[in-house]
């Protein structure tokens, strides 16, 4: 085989240098939006997360809502919706993004509330699968510069090899200044989540009472009577809150 000419050698060398340089650059300078750090996902691999179910409505209504007000509210709801999605996607799926999202979206006071609430999941969780994520956003009918949102996320995953499921209900209050929405108030109610069992409609009440305990029922009873003192399988910081 004839040896490549000098020109061809230079061309091959240049191509190799570009490839190596690009690889090194991608390694040192993470790709993403502007200067954003790369998102590190803790989602279960290959699992499709459910769609967000978000409703928006006018709030603070004491008379009828005019058409112009509705349009204004819809416009602001379109601005708010991706921000709320981004926040809770960060909390549950991309924890390394939380600080950045909070810094841009929260006021100082709300950020303190968020940190105090210990919202989110413990550090060593993995394989997160979101069961349900819904949000109800109310935008103030007078001026559309204030809003409130109730967000519920139910997720399950693994913590130190053990399965857990958590329900989080978050209340956010938002104010808009200079076209930017900021969270000014935040509170959360987070607790372990168990799917409610469906009643057996085919059997009468008496049959249900007198029937032999199912394997699931026996497991439930043994769990209730467990006095070993093992901590309940829950996410860190989970607690219930009453009004």
């Amino acid at each position: 085989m004839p040896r490549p000419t000098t020109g061809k050698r230079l061309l091959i060398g240049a191509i190799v240098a570009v490839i190596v340089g690009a690889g090194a650059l991608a390694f040192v300078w993470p790709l993403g939006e502007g200067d954003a750090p790369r998102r590190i996902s803790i989602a279960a691999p290959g699992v499709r997360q459910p769609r967000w179910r978000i409703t928006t409505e006018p709030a603070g209504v004491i008379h009828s809502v005019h058409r112009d007000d509705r349009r204004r509210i819809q416009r602001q709801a379109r601005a708010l919706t991706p921000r709320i999605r981004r926040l809770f996607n960060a909390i549950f799926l991309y924890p390394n993004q939380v600080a950045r999202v909070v810094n841009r979206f929260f006021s100082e006071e709300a950020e303190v509330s968020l940190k105090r609430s210990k919202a989110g999941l413990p550090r060593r969780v993995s394989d997160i699968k979101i069961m349900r994520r819904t949000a109800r956003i109310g935008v103030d009918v007078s001026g559309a510069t204030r809003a409130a949102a109730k967000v519920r996320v139910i997720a399950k995953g693994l913590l130190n090899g053990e399965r857990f499921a958590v329900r989080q209900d978050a209340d956010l209050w938002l104010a808009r200044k200079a076209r930017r929405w900021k969270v000014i108030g935040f509170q959360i109610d987070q607790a372990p989540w168990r799917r409610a069992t469906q009643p057996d409609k085919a059997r009468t009440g008496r049959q249900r009472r007198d029937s032999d305990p199912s394997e699931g029922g026996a497991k439930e009873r043994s769990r209730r009577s467990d006095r070993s003192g093992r901590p309940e399988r829950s996410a860190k910081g989970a607690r219930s809150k009453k009004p």
Partner: protein
Amino acid sequence: MIKRSIGLVALVATVAVTVPLIGAPDATQASSVTAGRVHAQFQPTDGKIFVLVIGNDARSGNPNSSRADAIHIAGIDTKSMRGGILNFPRDTYVSIPGHGSGRINEALTYGGPQLLARTLEKITGIRIDYWVMVGFEGFQGIVSALGGVRIHFNEPLFDTGSGAHIRAGTRRLGGKSSLAFVRARKSLPSGDIGRSTNQGRFLIGLLRKLRGEVHTNPASVLRWMAVTRRFARLDIPADELFRLGVLASQVSARDVGNVTIPVRIGFAGAASVVFIEPRAQDIFKRFRKTARL
């Protein structure tokens, strides 16, 4: 062209005359709700916010009356989300800046809510951030529009003076019965002092209602704001009002103390008054430092 100019001048003149009349306070507005800042700048003291709540006896038959029958300082510590309501009987004998000594409710007559706030600041050492003043119609209107307030009564309350006729148990009070409840004093053993305490209980009932509604739907704060603004003339920016509402909705009624200042009955000349007991100073100090009771 001339006809058009005359028409334009007439239109401008009509608007110039009519608009001020529309905005002029009438008999009912004198008894509505007004609010404002006590100081030019809002500066919460280490996360504590204090609001002076005044109930005056202005009503449509007597719109110019400005005697304060209800005087309360509501405090909230935004770090712990706890608070307190400190109640002052209306006959409390105090020094009123620039007006010598007299009953505390006279400060409202002499200098309005600002003078009353400064009088209380001098007595307690607390820096009051906002004042809210409510007349009869405004009070009834807001309570009715919000759907009433639930209060528990260990004993029935029948008061001929205020018209209160409430049986024992947990009752939902509408606008009219709420007003009768907070005005009742003749049937109470401790008279005006008991009335002050009941007014504090009503404020806590209102807070409990707000928190209950917000628990279901956080946008309820916006509805409460809309109702308040319907009956009120506010010198507080809407953003600050919203922030106050959000803070209040995060405070549990169980974490709010209700204390009436300790007083003793006496006379100032021929007038029957109450004097502040020395042990009230400890209450003022605690409230000033923690905003909790």
